[in-house]
């Protein structure tokens, strides 16, 4: 198990290294150089030179990459050109909105999808299965930012249960913060929950046709016992893979949803970075998002090994 965890950890490191190279390369291929790009066409040569110095662009390619990655390792992401504050400060403030939002959405996804998927699998072919699967079809088809707008119309404008947007900050109470994240999280979760419920359902149905279920039935387990004791855990294996993928969709989706609800998260930061051509902010936030995704995949790999003994014990 430990050995497996270490191999996964190494592969996590390799992924991060490759991702950082890729991001660095994309930023490097900008026509001209980053300083003149960031300042636009009307900048005076002096300011461009000054910015070059500030960005450390005068060093070699290797040197700049090492400076950037080395800085990130100790939490130094550089200084934002437009905000004139360390990027790490900006990011820390924003991530305390985006990450809770994605996790909240993930929890909602799982709590909605599991019961629906299991219930539908148990009632396969019945009307309840048919209608639930119809609802998930619809859930998959709805763009989450539009669903968010519908939620605002219904719960904020008409019913006035929630505010239409904004974030009070965690310092005003966790519950209040969570409340303002509820509609965005729900909007994010609906699509992913629909997908997950369908995967869960078909995975259970697939597992139920396996030989070992027949063995379990021949042992004297009832249909229900055979399903809960032998099918569910095996059915979880593909479900875990999907959950891992979904986290990255939720995180990316959060970037868009933040725009609908005017939440001060990473999404808002990155779009401001783009419009103000603040490359330092953009590359750092992208790297951070990739880090989060890779980390979640690592956790999924570990969960995989806990579920499936074939991965943790060699022959």
């Amino acid at each position: 198990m430990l050995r497996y965890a270490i191999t996964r950890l190494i592969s996590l490191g390799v992924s991060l290294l490759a991702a950082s190279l890729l991001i660095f390369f994309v930023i490097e291929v900008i026509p001209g150089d980053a300083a003149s790009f960031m300042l636009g066409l009307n900048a005076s040569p002096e300011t461009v030179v000054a910015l070059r110095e500030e960005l450390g662009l005068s060093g070699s390619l290797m040197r700049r990459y090492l400076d950037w990655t080395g800085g990130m390792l100790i939490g130094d992401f550089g200084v934002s050109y437009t905000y004139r504050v360390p990027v790490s400060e900006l990011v820390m403030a924003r991530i305390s909105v985006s990450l809770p939002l994605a996790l909240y959405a993930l929890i909602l996804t799982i709590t909605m999808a599991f019961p629906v998927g299991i219930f539908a699998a148990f009632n396969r072919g019945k009307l309840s299965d048919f209608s639930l699967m119809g609802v998930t079809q619809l859930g998959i088809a709805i763009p989450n930012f539009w669903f968010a707008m519908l939620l605002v119309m219904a719960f904020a404008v008409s019913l006035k249960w929630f505010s239409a947007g904004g974030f009070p900050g965690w310092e005003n109470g966790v519950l209040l913060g969570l409340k303002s994240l509820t509609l965005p999280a729900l909007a994010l979760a609906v699509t992913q929950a629909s997908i997950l419920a369908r995967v869960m359902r078909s995975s259970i149905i697939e597992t139920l046709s396996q030989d070992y279920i027949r063995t379990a039935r021949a042992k004297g387990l009832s249909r229900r016992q055979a399903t809960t004791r032998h099918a569910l855990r095996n059915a979880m294996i593909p479900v875990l893979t999907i959950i891992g993928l979904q986290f990255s969709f939720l995180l990316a989706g959060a970037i868009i949803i933040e725009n609908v609800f005017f939440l001060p998260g990473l999404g808002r930061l990155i779009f401001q970075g783009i419009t103000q051509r603040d490359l330092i902010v953009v590359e750092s936030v992208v790297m951070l998002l990739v880090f989060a995704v890779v980390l979640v995949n690592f956790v999924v790999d570990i969960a995989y090994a806990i579920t499936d003994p074939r991965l943790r014990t060699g022959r």
Partner: protein
Amino acid sequence: MTLLSVQNLNVKIQDFAILNDISLEIPTGRSFGIVGESGSGKSMTALSIMGLLPTQGVRRTGRIVFSGKDLGLLTERQMCAIRGKEIGMIFQEPMTALNPVKTIGHQVAETLILHAGFSTRKARREAKERLDRVELPQSTFPLHLYPHQLSGGQRQRVCIALAIALRPKLLIADEPTTALDVSTQAQILKLLRSLVEEEGMSLMLITHDLAVIADMAEEAAVMQDGHVVEHGQTERLFRHMRHPYTKKLFASHRLETSRKPHQHRKALLEVSDVRRQYKVRDNSSLWIKTAIKTAVRDISFTLFKGESLGLVGESGCGKSTLARAILGLDSLQNGVIRLDGDVIDSQVKTGVDVRRKMQVVFQDPYGSFNPRHSVKKLVAEPFHLIGNPYPRQARDQRVGMALKEVGLSPSDMHKFIHEFSGGQRQRIAIARALVLRPELIVLDEAVSALDASIRSQILDLLNQLQDRYGLSYIFISHDLAVVKAVTDRVLVMQNGRIVEVGKTTDVFHSPQHPYTKRLLAASPTIPEDWVPTHDWPTELSDHSLQ
């Protein structure tokens, strides 16, 4: 005393009759065999007794009385109480029969907890004892092992352990050894026999292999197309078989082929010092490390023109790897293989002239063909080797001829592979092998997936073709009876080495190497003297077959 009595059992699935009027009596403490070919309804009978038929669209009539209870009248809940407690069952495929994410101890103990209400600790203690009973001692097979850490034979033992955990009165074994090697099969059968003798259990053994029935069952029934065509005490059944189907089954099992032995002088294939090694990834290591596995260790032999050479051994002995090397599919690590004097090379570009002299027929009649190509395209595939010297018409003609030679119609070339049965597919595979008139055909378990009656037809066809074209065959099989019937010489392989070579009759009658002896002793046989008494002339029974 009767333990289980099946009376006039009929099963229909969506108006399609699966079982017709099945009546059986299984006495207490005896072994009862059911034999038949695939689709005869053997497994369906077993599942009906267990009450595990699919629920949708199935209609069952008739009575199944098990130790005084009519199982047809029981509720699902009452049936659950009987399954695993009073009737245990094991299946054909041990590799998938166990839950991969639970330990073997858990899976054996589950039966005990479920039916006997044992505490977890008591159940675990009992599970140890049961695993011991099936010869999986705790010292080497502790409870916390997972199924994937065991071999097929060991997994089948676990399946038996959990089926007999509560000492049921009846154990149903559905082709329990079909997926296993011959020596593993012998061990499992021995274990089953001792369970019947020592625990007073009744055994219902389902198999396609007459020899297993002869070896194991005191009473037996023969099934065909959902009917029991004949049943009775096993020895009497063999000696006085009445039904034409039983006779046919028996004849095809005997594999009395019309093969004439050949005189061989000229060497066709020379294999000298061939070694095949490949890398396997070692997953137990932290770093990507590869271990080198030697599958074939410096093997040499010669195959003569017009000869049939058998290659036998258990799974993993290297016989298929050797076949792939001969076919020029993999590169060698040592040695050389010559066909008709030319070196066989694994490179695609070179060696076209060598390649056209050899072809192959594989085991699986379903995986051997691209489902999207017509039979014409499939059979014509080897033409790739000779470029395109033929106009299309001449080519089609050759394909038609090849189909005719294997007993199909030239017009079959426009059909697709899914329109053919397993036996017909194997004929098409032979047609594909034949179309370029090769000198050598490698038959890799080519009849192993076929029912006995189809198998003997295909073997007859192969013999005829050999006579006609002077073909040489390398006949790879785990089935000793087949090799014995159709080869001139035989090679016995173990762990990548040839341990014995000789004339087939010599090797089978007086094996020299201990491994060969063990192999021969392990394969079940019908006693030599259990032959049908000739009250009924065979000609007559053949007519009644029509």
